[in-house]
């Protein structure tokens, strides 16, 4: 694997962003306090990567994106995007990136969706043939045809998001940031946006950084996951590594033929009983198969389902349980006689 630094398009090193809060404590008296939105953040993203940026609300995700697009300066540290200093070279950088700011739309709300796209063609000077080709493709991939001539303010949330995504990708930017692109969207829109992102990343090599609370987004899209909380990067690796490292629990939901008292099964514990339905928790590292056979051998099993740990739980565990070292032990273990424990 090549990890040469020249291929990286986003370089963040020891970036800190402090906000000064001034609170009035009395007549003419003010108290100053510093809040670190982001602290000693370091990561780099190579061209063509698709990275999921996770963390609870207020963790520093949006602050990071604002710094990456140049509308917020870091208090300390160094930031380079496509070789540019974002806040100093904001306009130059703007030509090369695309941004989808969650619910804040760059679309013209009173005009048909198409008009916003036409204006983007003019602003980014997309050659007409190329523009038509891109737009036709996006209309098909994101299923825009039925509402492209509808004023944006009449569109549903999902339709508007698909429009915003189109607007961000039309000028063929090198890097696209998406802040919560699937939040509040209907199933169809979510699926359309996901497959569009996946395809564009794969075929055009567009670097994509997206923040999300949606586990499915991460699972379907992101090879790499970064987790931030309280302004610090707590994890940077694959989703499986994250699951392994955090441990965490999976749940087995079983439907029995008739209501039973809570089951007693080794390696799992019942966390909830509701009529004939029971929920068991077991370690995420364990296989569900022996557990299922143990249940099936002793109880009249009708149906079952395995639930993965939710990303919120994983993130919460990352920060509430013991503070883990920055790198998983299995990676740094210098002793070759102790191979890293197998994943699952």
């Amino acid at each position, binding site marked *: *694997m*090549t*990890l040469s630094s*020249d*291929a990286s398009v986003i370089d963040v090193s020891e970036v800190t962003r402090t*906000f000064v809060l001034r609170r009035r404590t009395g007549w003419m008296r003010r108290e100053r306090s510093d809040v670190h939105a982001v602290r000693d953040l370091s990561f780099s993203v*190579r*061209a*063509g*990567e698709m990275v999921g940026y996770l963390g609870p609300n207020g963790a520093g995700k949006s602050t990071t994106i*604002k710094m990456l*697009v*140049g*509308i*917020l*300066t870091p208090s300390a540290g160094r930031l380079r995007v*496509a070789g540019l200093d974002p*806040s100093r070279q*904001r*306009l*130059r950088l*703007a*030509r*090369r*990136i695309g*941004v989808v*700011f969650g619910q*804040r*739309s*760059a679309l*013209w709300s*009173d*005009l048909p969706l198409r*008009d916003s796209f036409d*204006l983007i063609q*003019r*602003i*980014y*000077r997309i*050659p007409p043939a*190329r523009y038509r080709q891109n737009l036709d493709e996006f209309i098909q991939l994101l299923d825009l045809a039925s509402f492209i001539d509808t*004023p944006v303010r009449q569109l549903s949330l999902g339709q508007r998001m698909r429009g915003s995504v189109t607007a961000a990708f039309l000028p*063929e930017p*090198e890097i696209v940031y998406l802040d919560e692109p699937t939040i509040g969207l209907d199933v169809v829109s979510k699926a359309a946006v996901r497959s569009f992102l*996946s395809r564009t990343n794969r075929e055009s090599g567009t*670097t994509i950084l997206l923040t999300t609370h949606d586990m499915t987004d*991460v*699972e379907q*899209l992101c*090879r790499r996951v970064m987790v931030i909380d309280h302004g610090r990067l707590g994890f940077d690796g694959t*989703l*499986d590594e994250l699951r392994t490292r955090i441990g965490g629990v999976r749940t087995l*939901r079983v439907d029995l033929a008739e209501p039973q008292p809570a089951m007693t099964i080794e390696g799992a514990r019942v966390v909830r009983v509701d009529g004939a339905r029971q929920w068991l928790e077991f370690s995420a590292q364990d*296989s569900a*198969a022996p557990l299922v056979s143990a249940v099936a051998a002793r109880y009249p099993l009708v*149906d*079952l*389902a*395995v639930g*993965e740990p939710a990303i919120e739980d994983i993130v919460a565990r990352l920060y509430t349980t013991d503070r883990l070292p920055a790198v998983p032990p299995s990676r740094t273990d210098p002793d070759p006689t102790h191979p890293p424990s197998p994943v699952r």
Partner: protein
Amino acid sequence: MIPDRANPPPAQANLATLPAPAELAAAAAADASPRPTRLVGSLGRLGRLGRAWESARMWGAISSASARRMLRYRAAVLASIVSNIVLTVLRGHLALAVWAQRPGLAGYDSTAAVTFTVLGQSLVTTFAVFGGMIDIPWRVRTGSIEVDLVRPLGFQRWYLGLEVGRAAVYLASRALPAGIVGVLLFDLRLPRTAGAAAAFAMSLGLALLVSFGLRYLVALSAFWMTDFRGVQAVSALVMMFFSGAILPLVLFPGALGTVAALLPFGAVVQTPMDLYLGTVDDGPVRALAFQATWALVLLLAGQTLTARAIRRLVVQNG
């Protein structure tokens, strides 16, 4: 892995279809140099003239979008046409009554007075002397301003582009219909010479710049203030009063008159009017220079303040 999971594992399925990181990196490395230029490249071939043409088309498209956005509200447009016609007729008759009582007031005869009133009404609406019409304060409050800052265009220019579209709509939907009715109802004066008409036309463009320059500065203050409405109300009053829209500035006595003649507000209504009526004291060139100077000063001030406003947002996020 068991077959009957509630959540099929899409992660694994999907990852299989994705290229490996090594492939991605290699593809990206091979792609890195040509890709940024693939759209910019088409620009390089255009040459200076071609680029100016593209730029003009872009600003035309921005102004046009701004205008079309307003025209979507058909009922509002119709209502504004009617209300401006009614207001113009009322104010025209009022002027006639005043000048019938005080002939020669302000050095105007009654034809000049009624012309002043009808034309003044048109200028007031076209150049938004009543203030506002730049939605920076709203965008600052809602945070939409961030969208403006990731656009590869200058902030002030963008809003000027929008303003041109707005003024065009107001000219067509408010000023012209009311002006036509005014011409039909009253004995209005027309520019005496072709030169006066040309100077008037030029002064309209400059008046728009001055009006925008003023309102833009007011709108920018929203970056520093939590409640913008006070500034907005006061500025609208001052602008209206000193523009010459309510009373001709020549009516202002003594020192007030001197000051009013120097302030930029007169460049929005009084100067175009004087050029139209041919009542400029020192010739049209001086009047146009007065407007142009204020336009330049205000736009430069706006540019400086824009940089500070954005800096404030970017550095303090406040």
